[in-house]
């Protein structure tokens, strides 16, 4: 078994005239958890559907678990799991009936089933609800059951398309606990998410925009790679300060965060300008420091810049 779970080169998909994804190059190692983030319509779902053998690529190459997406889509499907945004659970089947249905579908050998079922139910804290119909589960429980079904045939690679949308933080954390357990067993995880605090948990993160991968690195390096700095300012009047700065610098660069002002600046001289604006508005700065940006700051910076370049 090679160490490479996914090798993608020049991958693209057009719908009519429109390229949903183009020129995608990417390598994911076995046992890695790779996060794909990007605005709506960036091409995340299209990418995932090509890699899972569901959608044919228009150009380029990719091997998944060692098999080509062009020639061996069926071999790929047997070795991966794909949990889409509308994962197919059967509402009128119980929790354990859903699991058995997927075990049948993936032809899991009978003798392996019972211990695996028990383990997956235990992992997902669904054991007490095994006889409950899936439609009567909460949103978070449904997601965990979907994940359990996706894991019943012990896939080598798990693809998850925005798996935790609308799920509350406690259930999300349970969900991630299951993912860690899978990672420890050597499963590779490829996940798209709109939650950037979740992307922080990935070993590497790819930022997609307008069909292209515009940044790809570890969360740490992505943050270090921001050309500017994030300033945190403490003032007595955070709202007024935000208004004053947004009026001069544009509102996308200033935000209120836990009563503090966060301001992204690429230019050291601008720090002077910021102080001048606040002074003019009669607002005193009580404290000022440079803080580590979040992945959301990184995301907003590169997407905004890419948009500006496209417009120019």
């Amino acid at each position: 078994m090679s160490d490479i779970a996914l090798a993608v080169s020049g991958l693209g998909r057009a719908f009519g005239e429109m390229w949903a994804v183009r020129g995608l190059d990417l390598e994911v190692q076995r046992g890695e958890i790779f996060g794909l983030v990007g605005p709506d319509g960036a091409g995340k779902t299209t990418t995932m559907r090509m890699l899972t053998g569901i959608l044919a690529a228009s150009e380029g190459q990719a091997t998944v678990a060692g098999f080509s997406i062009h020639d061996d889509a069926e071999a790929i499907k047997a070795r991966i799991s794909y949990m889409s945004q509308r994962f197919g659970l059967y509402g009128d089947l119980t929790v354990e009936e859903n699991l058995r249905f997927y075990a049948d579908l993936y032809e899991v050998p009978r003798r392996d089933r019972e211990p695996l079922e028990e383990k997956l139910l235990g992992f997902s804290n669904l054991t007490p609800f095994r006889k409950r119909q899936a439609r009567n589960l909460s949103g978070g429980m449904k997601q965990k059951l979907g994940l359990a079904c996706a894991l019943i045939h012990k896939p080598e690679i798990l693809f998850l398309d925005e798996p935790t949308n609308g799920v509350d933080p406690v259930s999300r954390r349970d969900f991630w606990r299951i993912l860690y357990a899978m990672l420890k067993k050597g499963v590779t995880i490829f996940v798209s998410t709109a939650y950037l605090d979740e992307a922080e948990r990935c070993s590497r993160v790819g930022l997609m925009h307008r069909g292209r991968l515009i940044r790809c690195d570890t969360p740490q390096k992505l943050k270090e790679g921001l050309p500017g700095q994030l300033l945190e300012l403490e003032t007595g009047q955070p709202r007024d300060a935000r208004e004053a700065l947004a009026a001069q610098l544009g509102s996308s660069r200033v935000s209120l965060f836990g009563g503090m002002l966060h301001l992204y600046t690429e230019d050291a001289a601008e720090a002077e300008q910021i102080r001048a604006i606040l002074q003019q508005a009669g607002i005193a700065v009580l404290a000022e420091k440079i803080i580590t940006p979040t992945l959301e700051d990184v995301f907003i910076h590169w997407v905004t810049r890419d948009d500006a370049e496209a417009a120019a």
Partner: protein
Amino acid sequence: MSPEYAVEVHDLTRKFGDFVAVDRVSLSVETGQVFGFLGPNGAGKSTTIRMLCGLLLPSSGAGRVAGFDIMTESETIKRHIGYMSQKFSLYDDLSVEENIDFFTGIYNVPRIRRRERKDWVLDMAGLADKRDNLTRSLAGGWKQRLALGCAVLHEPPILFLDEPTSGVDPLSRRQFWDLIAQMAQRGTTVFVTTHYMEEAEYCDELALISRGRMIAKGKPAELKTVIPEDILEIRVEHPFEVLEQLENSGLVKEVALFGDTLHAVVEDAGAATTAVGDFLAGRGLAATGITQVRPSMEDVFVSLVELEDRRSTEGAQT
């Protein structure tokens, strides 16, 4: 209307049969504040919001919203608030402009103000050049801003937002919160629920409910000081191996991977830093750094909800 509090309710309770969905919730929201209302799915958030909006009559309790009595003046309350749910109640088969016109009628916006309000929504949402587009063809972020605009056409003093950013991408989310900050700056009170904990940081005040009961209230920075645990960030060469070792060490309550570092939940940062450092060094896995980090809002949320769950389970057993 009381100038100080836009929402002030005491012991708000709602039962459905034997089930107590909301249990004696009291809260006050100052005028012009952004108030974040957090809780797990099924905690009673939507039931509370529906009572505050005059859509559902409380089983008991008392209070005022926009100065009107929630028990007796729900119809008046409905006219003085804006409400936007996660489902953005827009008509997909109408154009952007037709949706605005429709809601202008529903909310009885005076004729003389209609043109001005429509232009304001189109401008605020950045939809001026998309006014003839079908709503269904809009991307999530546009749709969300249109829904927000339609919810405030009648310029309500209070705006209720029920998970307004679910499934919307980060850039659109940040633009949305910019709009919220601007509205609050002009005096609108905003009452919002969200599952995105980094968004909770944008709020002036937060309340956390679980199983229908209020379990914590305060400013974001204050809530971070109420959790009993500390969080350590541990930098190591081999995070997976260390993760496994630490899980079975008894030294940490919980440990999780964060990219190439580990986050551990511990009783006391000082003692645990030494203990974890020694433990790892003894196994040839010495950490390159162990530092205490500020808990994230998610750490706070999960810790408080799990604490409450343990309490109520213990309570049930005794």
